[in-house]
């Protein structure tokens, strides 16, 4: 049964419904869409013990103002932002109760530009080609194929059941976007069409680019030194990757994002590794970007580490395992308990029992994340 959850009082700049994306239709030219920042999106659902494919609201720059029409639980992840319920500031990266009549509103982002608002059970929207994601250019998916509008009523996807809910926080979730530091993106150099000289390729990672203000969900355009082609920019049209670095004739890179066209006829010099796409997504126009090439093996190692964080979070939240296995595989990824004792044995398991509250610190790429797990009634 669908329950009315929010009325949109102010829509924000670009608020859309997104789930994991629309797969299986790229062969007929239908873009994937889905979250720009997959990491924050997934954590928003994990925090509420939702299946990962539950639809969330994705906000850009300035979020909406919403009135709750029923009680539910919400979680907000993504950019550092001042969000309030009834004018009282709320914490991000944790489940929060919201009651009928409460007003949720967003200030301008402080670091990063994209937020996700998850609700228990996910937002309801018609399944179009197996997905609830909004594809703005195609005018389908989500809330009638468009951004949220004033007066829209949005529903949840199943009756909210607040019983036996495990409350988890992922505090200081990430603050990977410091507006003053250049963002280093790790990339794979591909140049499969042999369109670039070694000089041109090196130029990409020796230079600093800035994100153009004409960036959107389709692609982030960069301004900076031209990447010259040996002959021309045209290739036989072929499939496009999420994060592909396309170099059109003018030599200014475009990084292809969630709403990218399925195919394209411009040369590509490489691709941003999957784990770094969320960081790019969170970077505002004029943000400085640099590139560092990595190998496919490195990219996959980083990918697996990231998956491990998400998986360990998810398994703890769902509490399906009586034993929580802390997976430790890589030097870059350390888990220690709240007292600072490192958990380093890959087979080490911790007993999980109801009523327990468990706290972890996760160190990942030089940053420390706190993870608190407690039973919530």
């Amino acid at each position, binding site marked *: 049964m669908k329950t009315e959850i929010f009325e949109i009082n102010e829509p924000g700049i670009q608020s859309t419904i997104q789930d994991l994306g629309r*797969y*299986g*239709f*790229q*062969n*007929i*030219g*239908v*873009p*994937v869409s889905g979250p720009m920042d997959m990491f924050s999106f997934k954590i928003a659902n994990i925090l509420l013990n939702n299946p990962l494919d539950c639809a969330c609201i994705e906000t850009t720059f300035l979020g909406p103002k919403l009135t709750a029409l029923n009680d539910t639980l919400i979680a907000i992840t993504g950019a550092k932002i001042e969000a309030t319920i009834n004018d009282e500031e709320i914490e991000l990266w944790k489940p929060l109760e919201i009651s009928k009549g409460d007003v949720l509103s967003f200030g301008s982002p402080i670091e990063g530009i994209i937020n996700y608002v998850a609700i228990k059970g996910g937002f309801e929207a018609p399944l*179009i*080609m197996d997905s609830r994601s909004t594809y703005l*250019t*195609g005018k*389908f998916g989500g809330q009638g194929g468009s951004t949220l509008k004033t007066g829209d009523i949005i529903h949840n996807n199943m009756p909210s059941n607040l019983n036996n809910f495990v409350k988890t926080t992922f505090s200081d979730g990430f603050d990977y976007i410091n507006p003053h530091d250049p963002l280093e993106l790790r990339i*794979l150099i*591909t140049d*499969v*069409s042999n369109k670039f000289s070694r000089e041109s390729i090196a130029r990409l990672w020796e230079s600093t680019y800035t994100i153009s203000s004409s960036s959107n969900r389709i692609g982030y355009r960069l301004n900076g030194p031209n990447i010259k082609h040996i002959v021309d920019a045209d290739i*036989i*049209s*072929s*499939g*496009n*990757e*999420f*994060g*592909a670095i396309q170099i059109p004739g003018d030599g200014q890179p475009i990084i292809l994002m969630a709403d990218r*066209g*399925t*195919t*394209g006829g411009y040369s*590509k010099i490489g*691709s941003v*590794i*999957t784990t770094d796409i969320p960081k790019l997504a969170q970077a505002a126009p004029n943000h400085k970007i640099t590139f560092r090439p990595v190998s*496919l093996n490195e*990219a*996959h190692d980083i*990918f*697996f580490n990231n*998956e491990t964080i998400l998986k360990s979070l998810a398994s703890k939240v769902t509490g399906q395992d009586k034993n929580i296995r802390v997976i430790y595989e890589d030097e870059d990824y350390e888990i220690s308990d709240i007292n600072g004792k490192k958990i380093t044995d890959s087979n080490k398991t911790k007993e999980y029992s109801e009523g327990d509250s468990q706290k972890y610190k996760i160190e990942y790429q030089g940053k420390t994340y706190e993870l608190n797990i407690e039973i919530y009634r």
Partner: protein
Amino acid sequence: MNEDLPIIESTSDCFISVRFRDEIKIEINNKVHNLFKLLSNDSTIGIQDLIPSYNSILIQYNPAELSVSHLNQLIEKHLSGLSNAGSQKTVIDIPVLYGNKYGRDLDYVAEHNNLTTDKVIEIHSNPKYLVYMLGFTPGFPYLGGMDESISTPRLTTPRTIIPSGSVGIADKQTGIYPSESPGGWRIIGKTPLILFNYKQDPPSFIMPGDLIHFVPLESMKEYESISELVRSNKFKPNKNIQNEN
């Protein structure tokens, strides 16, 4: 035969491309569609999506579920014994009203090629065009096989709105706009059919590997009557199966 072996390469940490010779040719495109079928029917977990194009397939996969080496083996398995033979093809009639308000560049195309407008229509509606791929936007067909005697350069300044269903020419290519969009193609006509509708299953009227046959309409009246049938869901498309030699 070795030169016909495709290049298999990672183009990202979640994508692998299988690319045949860099040519736009029916035999090569047949291989793409044949490989697409084999991979589509493969139930291996971890393959997320497939994007077939003129001479390549881009495979999106989840490295957490399917290792790159396992995926490589899988591709090799399906490549061995891959045929370049065309399978049965569906020939789709696309009714088009050429010229007048729906094809305002028809006169220019005729002039540019020193032909009468009737001759342009005759040449354009004669072949069966192969749908090499769909891409760029939902349902947009990349067609091959246009007679070069009607090729015409693109507009220097693209128009901001091309209505959906418009049939156009850009250099040596012809195509149809499945949805309203900006564009620089020379528009010579318009079909009353709806080529992409997300509410339908399948959403695209045309599929990769199909053959398209443009059928000239005699009058605006005929266009309107087909349009009415389409709107009321009573239009019976003319699709025939053709065995390729």
